[in-house]
Each structure stands twice: as C-alpha cells, then as structure tokens.
C-alpha cells in the first residue's frame, strides 16, 4: 500500500528549514505522500532515506502510452481499487473495431462514421479514443486499411492479428503513430515481442487467465518490451469481472509486478450503427462520471432554481452551490409550500459562511449571479433574501443589484415561517 505522510516524515531532517518551499517537514511529507511533491525536492534528505523510501514509491501499475501527439492515450498508474479511496487517474480508452476484410467503400463509410463519435459534455469534447483494425490473414490488406484509418480518423490504432507476419506490414505503414499490437500469446510471444521492440510499440499480452499471464509478462520484459497491456480469454461477464479484479488486486494489494500493467477487454456484440452512437454517448458519459475526482466537493450548477411553481410575485432566495447547503435550503423551502425562486451562486462548493469568509459569496458575486441567472425577467418585484449569516452584506448587495435586500434566518429551518409571511411589497 502507498506510503503515508508519517512514514515519510520519519526519514526527513525535521528542521523545518523551508528550503523545499513548504512551511514544515511534516507538510512536505504530506505533499510527497499525495504525489504533489517528490522526495528530491528536499535538498537535505539522506541517501539512506531515499533508499528506504524508493522501493515503496515505484508505481504498481505501469504507465503505457498508445498513439502520439495530442490524441495519444495514456493508460495505467492507477493506485486505488475504488475511486472513493482517492481518485481514478486515467480514463479508460474506448476503441471501435474495424474488420480489414470489408471492401473499400464499407471501410470508408465506417471510418467516416467513427469520426462522428465525439460528443460535447460539460463544455469539452469526449469520444472514442482508438480504432482497432483486425486482420483476416492478408497482411497487405491490413496495412492498407490501417493506413487509411490513421489518415482519415486520426486516432491511435490497435493492430490485431495472430502473428508477427500478419502485422508487420501494417506496423511498418503506421509505426510513427505508435500503434498498440494485439496480441502476444504463449504461441507467438517471441516474434511479437521482437516486432514490438523493433518498432517501439506497446504490446498486448493475452493468456487464458491471470496466472497464465504471470508466465508470459516476464518473458516480454526480458525480451525488451515493458509497455504491455494485459487481456485474458474470459468471455462471459462474470469471468471478465473475475479476471479484471484479480489483475487489479494483484497489482495493487499483492504487489504482483507481473500483473502491474493496464488491461484491455474485447467485447463483440451485434451493433447496428445507430445504437453504437447511443451506446457511445452513454459510455462516454459514464466514463466521464466515474473518472471525475471524488475529492472535489459536491457542487451543483450555479443558476436559477424553482421550488414548486414560482411566479412573478414569488419570493427570491440566494444561496451557495454547495450541495448540502442547497439541498437543505431547498428542502425547507419545499416544506413551506411557498413556491420560491432560488438563485444559486458559484462558490466552488463551499457553504455560506466559508464562502463569505473567503469572498466567494460577496456582494459582487451575488450581484453577478442575480444578473446572469435571469431572475430579473421572472419576477416583477425586486426583493432578494440573503441567508442570515451574511446579514452584513445587505447594504452592499443593495448597492450592487439595485434590489431591496431582506435578511433571512441564520438557520435554514427558519425559512418556512419567513416565506409564509413574505409579501412582494
């Protein structure tokens, strides 16, 4: 398991000299433990300390890169089994499969279609990451289709075949794009390893199960290829789950270096064109969700919310975008049975008092939120209610917004009675 700050602290000089730029040795140890600093940043750490800590800090799962340029895919280096233990680091890649045996027109159609599998989520672009081109035995055909894929789609490639001879032409054709070679098995290991090594390509190693993988990966490493991906012959959902769990647990909890590599799973299902789009959208979204960093506080979108069906003469409350705060307020507003507008200010997920103290919830930010959320078009009155804890902001908010500001209760539980007696005049 990972080194703790306390473990690291024991090996530091404990002089709090600040040469590393951090106020205390313990604070530095905490940063090193969280991989926000490296041990080398301390100019005074001894060789013994470095040796003692070195063995512990090599990443249990190797970093493997497929592809080059800005579309390259980095995989691996995960450190936890569950996202809530810290976070997952490298979103998995999604690859679409193309059979090299299709005719040129069909290939062209597929490639064009693959290009459409990109979607905007939260203001950024996400989509499939790789194109896997599978050989039917004809090495030149594979090379031609692979080249087209590289040129027309521009994503990293996976070249799939059963032997080095099947793949070598294709590899030569696209080797500058650093394709992933699939796959080395017990039968073809030596030649596949040689092919990968010669062309500086990452290599998939395939075996019946994790135990069998442990026999093969050391040989690949000995042969000079360390950038490996692992896959097994598991076909059913349950078996896949078992093997993937075994590999991840092995690498992280059993320190099994022979399994310390990212993994790959091939799933073949019937896939009419349209369903793939839907499935891609759903998968891309799910991936985006699962790989978000759980350490960030739960926030909701900063905008205008409606509780019940508020109208022009309904009250307007202001609060922060920290989930807990918002849901508490919303629940009390609901309980009041008074339809109400709630203006949520982006305070980066901090609560009312915390946000106020650090100026995220200030007259300026409140005024900006009121302007931006469009509440001015929804209500005919100009009365705003602030949480009691920021009563001191009243004057400034009135100045900044031109609205009349009322002070609500300090406690959310006081909201119902205040709302019930609220009038727009």
């Amino acid at each position, binding site marked *: 398991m990972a080194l*703790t*700050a*306390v473990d690291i*602290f024991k090996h530091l000089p*404990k002089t*709090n000299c600040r040469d590393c730029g951090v*106020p*205390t040795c*313990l*604070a530095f140890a*905490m940063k090193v433990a969280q991989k926000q600093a490296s041990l080398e940043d301390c100019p005074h750490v001894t060789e013994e300390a470095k040796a003692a800590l070195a063995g512990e800090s090599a990443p249990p799962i190797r970093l493997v890169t497929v592809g080059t340029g800005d579309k390259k895919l980095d995989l691996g280096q995960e450190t936890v089994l569950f996202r809530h233990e810290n976070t997952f680091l490298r979103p998995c890649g999604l690859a679409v499969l193309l059979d090299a045996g299709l005719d040129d027109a069909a290939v062209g159609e597929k490639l064009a279609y693959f290009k459409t599998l990109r979607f905007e989520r939260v203001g950024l672009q996400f989509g499939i990451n790789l194109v896997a081109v599978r050989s039917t035995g004809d090495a030149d055909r594979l090379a031609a289709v692979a080249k087209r894929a590289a040129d027309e789609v521009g994503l990293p490639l996976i070249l799939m075949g059963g032997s080095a001879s099947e793949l070598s032409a294709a590899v030569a054709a696209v080797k500058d794009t650093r394709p992933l070679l699939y796959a080395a098995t017990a039968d073809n290991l030596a030649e596949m390893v040689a092919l990968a090594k010669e062309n500086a390509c990452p290599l998939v190693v395939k075996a019946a199960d994790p135990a069998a993988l442990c026999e093969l990966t050391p040989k690949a490493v000995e042969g000079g290829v360390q950038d490996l991906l692992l896959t097994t012959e598991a076909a059913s959902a349950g078996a896949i789950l078992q093997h993937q769990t075994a590999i991840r647990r092995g690498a992280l909890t059993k320190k099994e270096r022979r399994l310390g590599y990212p993994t790959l799973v091939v799933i073949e299902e019937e896939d009419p064109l349209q369903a793939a789009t839907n499935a891609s959208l759903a998968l891309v979204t799910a991936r985006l969700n699962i790989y978000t960093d*759980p*350490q960030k*506080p739960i926030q909701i979108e900063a905008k205008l919310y409606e509780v019940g069906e508020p109208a022009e003469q309904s009250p307007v409350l202001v609060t922060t975008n920290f989930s*807990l705060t918002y849901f508490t307020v919303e629940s009390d507003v609901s309980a009041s049975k008074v339809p109400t507008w709630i203006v949520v200010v982006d305070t980066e997920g*901090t609560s009312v*008092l*915390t946000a*106020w*103290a*650090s*100026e995220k919830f200030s007259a300026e930010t409140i005024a900006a939120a009121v302007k931006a959320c469009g509440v001015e078009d929804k209500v005919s009155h100009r009365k705003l209610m602030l949480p*009691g804890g920021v*009563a*001191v902001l*009243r*004057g*400034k908010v009135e100045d900044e917004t031109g609205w009349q500001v009322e*002070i609500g*209760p*300090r*406690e959310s*539980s*006081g909201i*119902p*009675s205040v709302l019930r007696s609220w009038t727009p005049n």
Partner: protein
Amino acid sequence: MASITFRPDNLTVTANDGELLAVVAARAGLALRSDCGGQGACRKCAVRLASGELGGKEGGAAETRAVEGGVEVLACQTTIAGDAVITIPEANRAADLTPLAKTLGHVAETLAGQGVREPLAARRCLAIKPPAKGDSIADVDRIFDALRAADPRLRQLSADLPTLRALPTVLRQSDWSICTTIVDGLSASQLANVASACDIDRPVFGLAIDVGTSTIAASLVNLGTGRTVATGGKRNGQIRYGDDVISRIIWTEEHENGVETMRRTVVETLNEVIEEARRAVSLAPDDIIALTVAGNSTMMNFLLGIPSGPIRRDPHTPPASWLPLFTAGELGLNVWSRAPVMCLPTVSGFVGADITAGVLATGLAEARELVVLVDVGTNGEIVVGMDGMLVCASCSAGPAFEGVGIECGMHGAPGAIEGVAYDPATDEVTLEVIGHQRPQGVCGTGFIDILASLFEAGVVDRGARFSEDFETERLRLREHELEFVLAFAGEHGAARDLAISQSDIENLIRSKAAVHAGISTLLCKLHLEPEMIRRLYLAGAFGSHLDVRKAVQIGMLPDLPVERVEYVGNTSLAGAQLCLVSREAREKVRAIAAAMTYIELSVEPGFMEEYVGSMFLPHTQTERFPSVVRTPTV
C-alpha cells in the same frame, strides 16, 4: 453636548450629537449585545427611549417601534440628538465579564512551578567602578562588565540610543550607583534604561495579555517572584464593528482609516485592562516593564495596525507570523514607554499566537504520546501532537459555546447557568448558576449539560430534534418552532422565560460537530486513532465547571476515559505568562510556531463528511462511543 442617562443603572454620560447610541452605552460601561455587528439585523441592542430625542443613523428621525410601555429603538441604528433617558432591558446587556484569566489543572501547575528564570525585562541596581587614571574604559562597557559579573547568563549586550544619551549624566549624577533595566531580547540582551539607584525593594511587574476576539484578559506578574498579583478582563471594544474576525476585517476594508480605527479601539480596551490591573495593586505605569501578548492572527495584526485583508481570502496568509520586540510606547500602551512587548508568533491566518501559547503552556510539543489541545473559542482551534509531529487546524466551530448567536446565551459570568439537569419523571429542571444569582442566560458548560440532559431524557432524538410527542409543558411551539423552557419567568428567580429553541440546538450541534470532526480529521491525517489519545486539553471560555462526561455524551469530544481529559482554562494567557518569565519559553514558542503544520480543513477531503456524521448524538458511527449508552424510546 447632550446628557444621556441610562436606566436602571442611573448612569449619566455626556455625548455628542450624532454619536451612535451603542457606542455611548459602551463608553458608559453598559455594552449592549450585538450579533450582527451593528447592521440592525439581530435586534439584540434594542433599548427603550424613556424620554428625550434620538436621531437616525442615516440622518433624520430615529426608527422606532411601539412596544408595550413605550418606544423601542435599535442602539446600533440610532444617534444622539439631544438629552435623553434610555432604559436598557436586562436581556440585551452584554454580560459583564468575570475575568477570563483563569487557568486550571496541569497548566495552572506549570505556571505555579515556573518561578522566574530570565524575565523579559528586569531591573538591577549596581555600583559601577568609576573611571580613574589608567582605567578609561567607556562608561557603557563598565556597565556591561558589571552586569555580566552579576549575571553570567546575560548574552551579547547592547544599549539603545536614548539610554546612551542619558548614560553619562546619570552615571555621574548618581555617583556611579545606578539602576539598570535589561531587556532579554530575541537573541541578545539590551540595556534599555539607566537611572539613579532606586529603592531595591521596589518590585517590577510584567503583564501577560490574551487579546481575544470577544474578551481581553490579562495577568499582572511580579517579575521578581513570578507570582500573579492581579488578573483583569474586559470585553474587546472591537465588538461594535462585528462579533467575529471576518466581519471586523471586512469593516476595516470598507471604512476609511478602518485599520487605524480598529487598532485604536483594541488599544483603548487594552489600556483599560492595564489600568484596572494597575489599580488593583496600586502601581504606577512605569512599574510595568514588560508585556507579552497572545491572540489569534487577526487580533495580533489589528493590534499592530497591520492590514489583515489577506487573511480572509484564499489562501488565507497572515501578513506576519514572526515579530520582533516592540516597545509599549510605539504601540500606545500605557505602561513604561520602553517596556518590551513580545508578540507571540502565529502559525497561519487561522491558527494564531493564542494557540502557540497554548501548545507551550500544555507541553504538547514535548509529548512522546498522543496529546490533543482543543481551544474552543470563537473559531475552535485544534492541535494534535505526537513524537515531534504537530498538526493544527481551525474548525470554525463558531461562538455558540460562548453564548453568541443563541437566544439565551451568555459568557461564563455571574448569572450564567453553568449546570443543568432535567428529570423527566418530575418534569423539573435543576440549575447551577454562577454566583448563585438569578439566572439570566446560559453559558457554554450549561449548553453541554442541556444537550446531554435532553438527549438522555428522550426529549430530543439522536438527530437532536425535539420529539413533539414528549409529554411536558416545557416543550412548546413559539414562532413556528419548538423550544424547551429551562426556567419559566419566576422559576428559580428568572426574570423572563429562559428557553432553548430547535434553532439554538442546531447551532450548538453544528459547533460541537465541527470540533469533533476537526479532531477526527487531524487524527486521520496522521493515521492515528482516538483511543491513542493520552491527554486531551480543553481550553476556552466555557465556564469552569465543565463536565467532561457530558461533553463526550453529546459527541463533542472523543470517547476517552474522563481522567484523560482536562479543562485548563485560558491557555493563551498561560503561554503568554510563561514567556514573561522564561527565556526558554520565549525560544520554545518560536520553535513551536515553526514546527506546527497547518491543515486547511475546508479543503480536506473527508472533513465535510465527518462533520455531517458528527451532527448526531453522540455520533452516526455509534461504535465510536461505546461508553454512551442510551435506551431508545419506543
């Protein structure tokens, strides 16, 4: 000039037209409550106009409200407009404060056993060998030689300019029999004064000061014997600009000369405290020759007139944490003008000199085993120490346990309910009141007792919510929420109903949850378990009769054997006092400040969740509190 009379005290003061009524009352020593910092929002400063005229804060007439028996105004929104008679309702008086300068238990023992090693300043009378033919050593060096002969512990000596100027004359006029004042500086000693030899019996004193957000407390110490001869306490005058640190910082930023006004205000209060302490033992200002000051980071900066804006903004950096010695004169403090003032060091924007002082006083830094210090003041700071590791945090507990923001809350002063027991069988509430007076409100320890009592009796469920169907007349609906009446008007001599509402309870629960979550999170950070805590020191202005068992019962403190927890009173003051009398203490407190690692809880993953979990009685993870057993009411 107008003449303002306050009833029922029958105190009359003069005031200028346009002055804020709240300020005039404070000047008269009749400070009013203010939870909203003068915004007119909390109505705690409401007073009656018995006769005369008042004006409005923004000009024009005063805003009045008709109440039974007269006209009510808010003192923070009303100004003087001629003579007037004002009646101050009991409920709205800011409590007179018992000097909150007490230390207890282990810390008190440390102080008592300390004695005087190297005081921050000392006076020594000497006979100096006059110069003669063949011996023309400089005047100053003669004095230094004599001093070193008398006290080998003195370090590198120097003399300041005023002393040098006075030296030659004083030496000859006193016939080479002089009285020196030596300051034990940060790394060297300084000859700070020379005068004719004085009465050797005349003692000199030092003042240790805790500049709290709400109260300023001080101990006057005889620098010869180390004995505390007087203590004093006063409400911090800055309260009129806001009852918490952040509001005050904002006030300084929004008002012209805000920083200077804030500085002057605290200096005024400090001088009142100094005067009170002096008069208690009939001292002249010049008899106090050394000061040590501890307080939270913002308070320290306010005192020095340093702008504190950066403290409230990300990443909350204090402008200065290590400070040189100042003189009382340059800070405007009414003691000997060249008295050295040591401002103890701070750690971060939210962990200040009061905490480094507390760590010094409790001996946390030397702890081989796990020791925790919790200072439940306005902000709630926690220090966890073990084996050379010191981590600290501010858990933003809020001042609920100091009575602020709670309807019937008050400081631990005479009239404060400090102990409560409710017997559901008889429906009776037993009260212990400080000073055995008529109960006026409830202080920190009283609130802890109330929560424990209500929980045990089943009046509140584990979520600290009142059970509507609990059979008692004490539980009633007022302004849409339930409240529990501790004493009806007339019961136990109470002048009005004293009740605790659901909102009040929620406020207290949040406070205790913040403290517990802060402790848990810091321990977690160091991969330590609560069971490993050998000692937990609790400091702050609760009131002295803290029932540790009840603090555990409500989940404010981890479930530790009672004997491992000690309430130690004002550790900020104790640490400042140690620095008055010991060089080692002065050096140690600086090392402590350098070694403390500050953890920002608001960005610490897991703190928020721990906080929510701590909002239960005693905790959501009941297995963490095996000693708290409560049969559920079905």
